[in-house]
């Protein structure tokens, strides 16, 4: 009896995804739904003014209160999912892909390319990231598009570094040699064999990076270099509410909660993905 039970349990457990992936996935899934269809939940137009309800505290009509324009904070927080999830994805996908490809080549080729890349890495991590991004955004002009470019110019290095390091490990393993002995081309070995095994840290980092991108987006929004008003974006909202911390805390607190929650989602998902992709040997 108990043996049957144990067998059933083990079968069940095996199919089950890592717990953190499930909880992270649920948070992110919901976020994505809100990002795609914010009007499902948001009762008001996020940019509509209401002069009769400036700085109104949370109430049934406005669950998160209103801001200094009388805009519904709840609707703004919800609508901000669209922009912030977009930031999370767009600011990181380019660096992820480009960095992964560069990292794969550098890690495989080694030698001079590795030395050059090493200096680029040094320079990049030596330069305060935020400052560099600010400078680049200042050159290109504010706005999300340019922010993606700025983040991408710097961000790919980290992916490339992770992938290169992992490829260096992987290329010494027997299965890589096996590929060479089979007469496979380097391209096939890199992309068909090594990369799938080397990319896990990059994917895990990607999860974290998406959370970081939202934070960076907020910081830039706060500095006025990210999303442009009247768009609802959490960083912009926090910046909007900064002067009202004492009198209307709800303007900045709720977007703050949203940031933390989404960050948590990404981080849990990252842990989960790491679990899921761990090579079983």
């Amino acid at each position, binding site marked *: 009896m108990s043996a049957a039970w144990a067998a059933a349990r083990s079968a069940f457990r095996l199919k089950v995804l890592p717990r953190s992936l499930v909880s992270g996935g649920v948070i992110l899934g919901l976020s994505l739904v809100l990002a795609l269809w914010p009007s499902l939940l948001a009762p008001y137009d996020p940019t509509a003014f209401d002069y009769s309800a400036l700085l109104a505290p949370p109430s049934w009509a406005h669950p998160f209160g209103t801001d200094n324009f009388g805009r519904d904070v709840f609707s703004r927080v919800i609508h901000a999912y669209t922009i912030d999830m977009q930031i999370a994805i767009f600011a990181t996908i380019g660096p992820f892909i480009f960095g992964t490809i560069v990292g794969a080549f550098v890690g495989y080729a080694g030698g001079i390319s590795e030395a050059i890349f090493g200096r680029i890495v040094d320079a990049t991590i030596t330069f305060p990231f935020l400052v560099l991004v600010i400078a680049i955004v200042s050159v290109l002009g504010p706005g999300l598009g340019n922010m993606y470019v700025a983040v991408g110019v710097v961000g790919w290095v980290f992916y490339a570094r992770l992938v290169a390091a992992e490829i260096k490990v992987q290329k010494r*393993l*027997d*299965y890589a*040699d*096996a*590929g*060479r*002995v*089979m*007469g*496979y081309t380097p391209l*096939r070995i890199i992309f*068909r*064999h090594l990369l*799938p*095994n080397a990319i896990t840290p990059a994917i895990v980092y990607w999860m974290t990076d998406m959370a970081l991108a939202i934070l960076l987006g907020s910081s830039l929004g706060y500095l006025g270099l990210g999303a442009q008003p009247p768009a609802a974006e959490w960083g912009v909202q926090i910046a909007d509410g900064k002067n009202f911390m004492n009198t209307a805390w709800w303007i900045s607190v709720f977007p703050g909660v949203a940031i933390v929650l989404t960050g948590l989602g990404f981080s849990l998902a990252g842990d989960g993905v790491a679990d899921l992709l761990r*090579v*079983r*040997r």
Partner: protein
Amino acid sequence: MNATLPILSIDGVSKRFRGPYSLMRRLKGEPPLIVHALNNVTLEVHRGETLGIVGESGCGKSTLARCLVRLHEADAGAVRFEGKDIALLRGDARRAFNRRVQMIFQDPYGSLNPRMTVSQILGEALFVHRMRSKPEIPGRIAELLDLVRLPQDAAARYPHEFSGGQRQRIGIARALAVEPDVIVADELVSALDVSVQAQVINLLLQLQSRLHLTVVFVAHDLRLVRHISHRVAVMYLGQVMEVNTSEGLFTAPRHPYSKALLEAAPELDPGQRNRKVALRGELPSPLNLPPGCPFAGRCPNVFDRCRTERPLLSPRGRGQFAACHLTDFGTPAPNANDPTGLLLP
């Protein structure tokens, strides 16, 4: 010696690796440290035979095996496949060579891409070398699985779902997929359990006779090498110390090192115990090779010449070669004065 052309010949191959090169050495203008992994190795592999290669860890067995399949390029000397120097092969010729000389690796866990299923692993080999047309590939995969005695449902599974022995069979199947002439097996079974080792060895023996394979069998387990090989080469510190037929080596080793190696291996018979240490000391570092015989430091029969002059591999009759100044070492002569001859039963 066999008059026919050897399928693989190794002709004075040397391989060096660059060791750590500290700034201190650079500043002093000293050259980087060099690991002498192979020194002037000469060997022949004949069609259809199994050549065993034994030696202690770090003596260069794997390096040699890798030179054979061109995972390493030799620094000096040449490896010839059917008389052609493999270092000169380019493009299609190189691919053809790669197809015909395959390698199987030691680590059953590391040698298979963990993210590919068995059918992907085998299918890729078949596809890249155009061994079969696309629709025929699944059938061929089934045949291969059958050949290495894996169940058919193995095709859809990932390496981690198999035991070590099964994985080695997948490795063998991958090598066989391209229908090679030569298989270089580097420590094929050392990572496996005794009971499973036997399965894989049996499989290799069967396949060899069925497919007329030539096998280079690299291992450190003397019992295994003796069991499977026609001829055996004993290596020490990047050099071949002795080449002998399997029986010849085990009954009358012609090199003191071979003898010590045999003595050190524990006998399976509890009645044959002894308390004498077979060989003292350890393998010296390949970073700075001694000028004379590499074994001089540990050899019980050492004399002055050994320390200054490196003995060359020279014939000892009946297909035997040894690199030792004691040319009559191990001769099965009834000469009672020879202290080294008494070992043989």
